[in-house]
């Protein structure tokens, strides 16, 4: 940290303060939430009603507008946890741990959503709800990794120790995710002549991919809102012994 200008370092320190986070982000939520709602509303209505049906899959392809954002956020969430883990272990920033705590269930929820929508989509496409397709299998393993993090955090009583333990696990996990993904991909191509993958539609026209883009952006903002909300709650719970939290509690009574 020696070569970082003083002002930047002060900003970093201030951003690391849970109180600063709580007091600053409260006003962001309505704006982010509103933008997310708008983007998702436009993207979903467009995707459901106005995009033309896929020439192979017909209208079932419209599940793509939620499946892809969910699958993307499932992975991004895990990477975010690992980044928070590095920040926690290297700079001992408590806020990173609180963000990590908040991300785990949200990421797991999106992973579940990606699996569930993929499986529902599989029924009309493959004729069965479950197939050991490379992508679905990797997402399932990702869900296990999330459950491991959540389980570890719940099992360790002291939150500080739990945070660092989860940080180590998230870092080990994030290094393994691409390895798992490639090995599973390779395994599946070894065992079945490439079945056509549901999301690898050849060159979508803009009328089909623009709503997908809108939904990906919208879900990103939605994810941000959920993480901020979760972190704000976590800040209060972890800092419940500080005066500012207690003052806040008493103020809200009045």
């Amino acid at each position, binding site marked *: 940290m020696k070569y970082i200008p003083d002002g930047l370092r002060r900003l970093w*320190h201030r951003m690391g303060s849970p109180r600063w986070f709580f007091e600053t982000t409260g006003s962001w939520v309505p704006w982010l939430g509103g933008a997310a709602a708008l983007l998702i509303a436009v993207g979903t209505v467009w995707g459901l009603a106005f995009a033309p049906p896929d020439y192979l899959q017909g209208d079932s392809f419209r599940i793509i507008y939620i499946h892809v954002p969910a699958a993307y956020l499932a992975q991004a969430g895990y990477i975010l946890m690992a980044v928070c883990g590095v920040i926690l272990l290297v700079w001992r920033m408590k*806020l990173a741990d609180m963000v990590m705590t908040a991300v785990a269930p949200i990421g797991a*929820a999106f992973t579940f959503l990606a699996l569930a929508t993929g499986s529902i989509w599989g029924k009309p496409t493959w004729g069965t709800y479950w197939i050991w397709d490379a992508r679905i299998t990797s997402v399932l393993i990702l869900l296990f990794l999330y459950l491991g993090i959540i389980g570890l955090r719940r099992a360790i009583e002291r939150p500080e120790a739990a945070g660092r333990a989860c940080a180590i696990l998230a870092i080990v996990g994030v290094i393994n995710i691409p390895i798992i993904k490639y090995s599973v991909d390779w395994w599946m191509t070894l065992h079945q002549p490439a079945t056509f993958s549901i999301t690898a539609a050849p060159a979508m026209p803009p009328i089909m991919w623009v709503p997908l883009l809108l939904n990906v952006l919208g879900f990103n903002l939605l994810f941000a809102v959920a993480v901020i909300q979760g972190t704000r709650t976590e800040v209060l719970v972890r800092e419940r012994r500080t005066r500012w939290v207690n003052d806040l509690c008493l103020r809200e009574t009045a």
Partner: protein
Amino acid sequence: MSFDSFGDFLAMGGHGFYVWWAYLLTVVVVGLILVWPVWRRRRFLREQRGRLRRSQALGGQTGRSSDAPET
């Protein structure tokens, strides 16, 4: 508009069941992850208020003053 009527829209070319299931599930899960932290925060504030009242009744202090950023 890719559908001729609202009925067609609901039917989704015969795939309506799957499409609507997927979207319904998404609404439920997203709703849960948005509501859950808020619900948890409300519950925490309620409980913490109770704890504070109890400790004030005992003449305790309202917590440490330290809110320095962690480094």
